[in-house]
């Protein structure tokens, strides 16, 4: 049975169709990439799955339970954690305390929350930042804090929205390592969006391609990049035509 099943999900904003009848399944242990050019509807789909937007049509089940009409925080409590493109942490709390907010989803006790938060910071290799304020950290470390906070809530599935944005290549490499460890050592399934393909391709078992709100391809990363529809979505019509001409010649 699929851990996450997205069935015919559509999301309209007035006349604008942000997602149109998107369906896919994610199984336990999967690392699934969700790619597509800017404005393809990736973040909207995330918001629909995580309960931040009400769906126009369709349904979503998580762990066999219909979560279509649940509220965002209820879905989070079931073990579906999401991160945001821009993670703005509380300015009144230290890094460790921000991570504790994640831990508090599973416990009432401050001492247990602290222990779990320290464990998560340590797991992500930023144990030394616990006492700092968020604004004092560089972007790459802030991204790790965001991951630590989501991790502290002990999820089954993490939806990662553009975690690699704004990082340089060596930082992205470090991030890939971290995500692989989250996946293997904590047995958390991952669904990641990225418009920088490098990271998704390196990590995903399967990839789903969105374009103008519709799913246009699904398959293994190496297969998907050859799909003419996908190339067209990313590089435009003439590129495909030119390649066809080149092929003919």
């Amino acid at each position, binding site marked *: 049975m699929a851990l996450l099943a997205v069935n015919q999900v559509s999301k309209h904003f007035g006349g604008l169709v942000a997602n149109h009848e998107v369906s896919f399944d994610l199984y336990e242990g999967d690392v699934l990439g969700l790619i597509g050019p800017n404005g393809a509807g990736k973040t909207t789909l995330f918001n629909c799955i*995580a309960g*931040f937007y009400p769906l126009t049509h369709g349904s979503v089940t998580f762990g066999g339970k219909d979560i279509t009409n649940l*509220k*965002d*925080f209820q879905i*989070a*409590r079931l073990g579906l*954690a*999401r*991160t*945001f493109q821009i*993670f*703005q*942490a*509380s*300015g*009144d*709390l230290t890094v460790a*305390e*921000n991570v*504790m*907010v*994640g831990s*508090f*989803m599973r416990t*009432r*006790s*401050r*001492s247990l*929350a602290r222990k779990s938060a320290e464990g998560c910071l340590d797991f992500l290799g930023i144990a030394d930042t616990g006492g700092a304020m968020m604004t004092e950290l560089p972007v790459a470390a802030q991204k790790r804090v965001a991951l630590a*906070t*989501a991790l502290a*809530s002990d999820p089954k599935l993490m939806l990662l929205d553009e975690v690699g944005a704004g990082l340089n290549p060596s930082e992205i490499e470090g991030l890939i390592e971290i995500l692989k460890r989250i996946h293997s050592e904590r047995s958390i399934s991952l669904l990641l969006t990225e418009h920088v393909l490098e990271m998704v391709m390196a990590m995903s078992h399967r990839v789903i391609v969105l374009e103008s709100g519709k799913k246009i391809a699904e398959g293994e990363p190496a297969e998907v990049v050859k799909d003419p529809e996908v190339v067209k979505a990313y590089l435009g019509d003439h590129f495909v035509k030119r390649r066809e001409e080149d092929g003919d010649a």
Partner: protein
Amino acid sequence: MEAVKNAFDFADMPKSELTIAGLGMAFLLLFPVLPHSSFAMATMIQFLMFSLYGMGWNLIGGYGGQVDLGKAQYVGIGAYTTAVMMIRWDVPFWISTPIGLALAVGWSFIIGYPLFRLKGHYFAIATIATSLVLKDLFEVWDFVGGARGLELPLKGDFPNWLYLQFREDYYYFYILLGLFVLGLLVVNGFRHSRLGYQLRAIKDNEDVAKSLGIDAHWSKIKAYALATAYVAVVGSFHACYNFNIEPEDIMSLDLSVLIAMMAMLGGAGSMWGPIIGASILVPMKSYLGDWLGGQAGLAGLDLLLYGGIIMFIAAAQPRGVYGIVEAVRARRRK
């Protein structure tokens, strides 16, 4: 009990702050013994009352970032419950106060539930409106004395602990000081509690908070109810201390704004903020108001001055006086 342990845990406070707090506490304990005018004593009592009002406000307004300008309605519920029960049924302060607290907290859930669907300025305006509507209702409700309010009867038998009636002000002072210490411990426990952390997460980014399983709406309502408990108890105390309550006095917009100003000036979202604010604003209000009131043509000038101070704080240092302390400390650390 971890909650009790949290309330007494001051380990995360800088030594300097704890030293100053200790000295301040010693001063408060000794104040009635030191030579002082009765005007100074009255001012100190006001200081303690407004510190408590501010501490309550700070829970939702400071830690939660929800600017609440309607706390006076709950002061009124506390004060009127105590006054009405004493006048009509001879109920002592110690019994009527918990009942007033329960009524105020109950009312805060009814008000809070729809109000916290609103955000930012809309929320602030709605809190003003609900408070003023309740005040208007009290002004036309004969059962509670209408616009003229209520006069509490003298019970005699001084010092009368049952009805909180004393000839000497230091009784009132020490009772308030007890509430003040209790109030501080509750705030300290609150900021170390799950709700306290969650509220600070909601304040800066509600979406992130929701993604961490926090029911932001319900968390705000809970903090609002806790804030209400503070002001309701002080309201009950005020009725006994003042012997006279009327809607225009204890349920006015002026009082709501003044309560919010304590924490905003001193530092919203910090534990000492409301106390710092009250220690500046209350003496200023009574001494300046007293002096200016005596000068022909200058009455009301003090109001202009608070307005100026608040505008200056809002523009220059939104985190209040305590924010200046924090900024200095951060610079020294670098």
